[in-house]
């Protein structure tokens, strides 16, 4: 269970560029929760993920992961419990290294001096076969030679190789063609349900925001403005969501106008 309690973050505080990107955000994610996150550009969605991952330390609030306070924990230490995928397929893998070497790092088994054994290789092949992309026959190829979709699928496999407690997906299918995107989404769903992960997924696709998962939250100007689940969510149609979205964005515009005094 991930518990976020009133976290805030201001970028460039005390300057003209000061930007309140997270404004006392609180959120509780139960195990097995699959939450989709929507919101306009600049709403603070990626910043929320950065806060959870520890890319920066938040200005206020606390973050709990299963009774462990991770507010001040270093980024690479949290990574043990948190898996993350980015919109950019290039970010999750090392292009100069082979598929096998990338997986070996993600698996992270054994001591510092341990090497990939034949058993490990077989395990890698079995997992890769699940992707249905033929990657299991290309273990020795550098990852840089793969297409974006293949790399993203591989990254998904790597991020969940040792099932994390929380999986964060930041528009991870945005750079893929529709068919590949669907494939990667289906794979995501399967891996999440199989391992009963807590999962947060940012998307700009209102349809998948409602289709996938069991809960949808909407962010605006660094705050969570909507949290829809259960019966209400099942009844919700895409149009309603878009309407709600526009309304929120309009409000943001209005407040901006008020601040500017026009």
């Amino acid at each position: 269970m991930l518990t976020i309690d009133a976290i805030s973050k201001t970028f460039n505080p005390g300057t003209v560029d000061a930007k309140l990107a997270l404004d006392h955000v609180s959120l509780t994610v139960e195990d097995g929760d699959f939450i989709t996150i929507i919101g306009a550009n600049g709403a603070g969605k990626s910043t929320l993920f950065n806060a959870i991952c520890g890319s920066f330390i938040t200005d206020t609030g606390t973050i709990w992961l299963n009774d462990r306070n991770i507010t001040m924990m270093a980024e690479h230490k949290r990574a043990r419990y948190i898996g993350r995928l980015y919109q950019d397929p290039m970010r999750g893998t090392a292009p100069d290294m082979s598929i096998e070497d990338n997986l070996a790092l993600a698996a992270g088994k054994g001591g510092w001096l341990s090497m990939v054994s034949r058993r490990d290789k077989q395990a890698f092949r079995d997992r890769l076969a699940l992707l249905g992309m033929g990657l299991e026959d290309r273990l020795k190829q550098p990852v840089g030679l793969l297409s974006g979709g293949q790399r993203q699928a591989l990254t998904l496999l790597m991020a969940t190789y040792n099932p994390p407690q929380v999986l964060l997906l930041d528009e991870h299918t945005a750079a893929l063609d529709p068919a590949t995107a669907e494939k990667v989404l289906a794979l995501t769903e399967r891996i999440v349900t199989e391992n009963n992960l807590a999962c947060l997924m940012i998307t700009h696709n209102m349809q998948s925001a409602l289709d996938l998962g069991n809960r949808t939250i909407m962010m605006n100007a660094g705050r969570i403005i909507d949290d829809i689940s259960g019966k209400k969510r099942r009844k919700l149609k895409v149009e309603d969501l878009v309407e709600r979205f526009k309304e929120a964005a309009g409000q943001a515009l209005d407040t901006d106008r008020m601040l500017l005094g026009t």
Partner: protein
Amino acid sequence: MFESFADFLTLGQNALELGLIYGLTALALFLSYSMLNVCDLSTDGCFTLGSVVGAMFIVYGPAWFPDSGLPLWFWSVMSIVAAMLAGSLSGLVTAVLQTRMGVQSLLAGIVVNTALYSVNLAISGNQVRVNMNSTFKKTYETVFTESKALLQDTPFAQQSSLFVALAAVALVILFLSLFLRTRIGLSIRATGSNPDMVRSSSINPAFTTTVGLCISNSITALSGCLLAQHQKVHDINIGIGVVTVALASLLIGGVFLRRGPIAVRALLVVVGAFIFRMVYAVALRLNMPTNMLRAVSAVIVVLTISVPHFINAGKRLHRRRQANRERGQAVRADH
């Protein structure tokens, strides 16, 4: 140019020995520059550090424990161990500066390099040179004299130095090819390729950078230590420009193969070092002044980097001309 074939062989063997010894530094940069993606500018100072530490152990080691009864060969072995330890310590300092103290990577190398000049002088008790040439009064045993004594009555007596250099290079390549396949080795490679991914594998890139620099600098120091013993003298200026020479070798080696098994790529780096030495030896025969070595190495580095650049530029120029011609034809067709 060559008086005889034997003369050519001698020249070739000497170039090979030097190529192998300097090739060790190229291998060190193969780890730090090609794998870790850190341009370690402390290389020159670290090379000299290996040289001076080794020389001090050879010359003064026996006097430190006069009653120990330790044989002289013990000190020649210790000289290598101590030089490598000193090198890794210098690598540790460079790494801590850039990973824990916010000093930029290039600057960290430069700063350590500068400091090492004083350190190296201090280690030798402010002697600019430390002589390891045996005299009537005193005998010094280096790894090379050891090897000479061992192979004295065999057909390989002439190649005794070559064997030492070969053994060192073989061991380092073997080590690197195994090490870079371990989990820490893979993490080091990933740090150079995508540090974000290293972090998401729950590994601290600061740690991998530190380990990588310690190892690469210990290899650089080994290289310096062996060169001084090969020349039978340590000189405070022995390391000047070594980083450029090593980079040239690395790049020459990289021309043959960009991707492939680590061991093969490492071997090619050493081949690059040998080619560099051979070119240099021939140029000397053609009466190139000795002090041109560093200028030559600088030119080679620039050439290996910029030739591919110019080839690409040439292709673009060609393509632009072609496009212009096509446009010209289209305009004419309109009229």
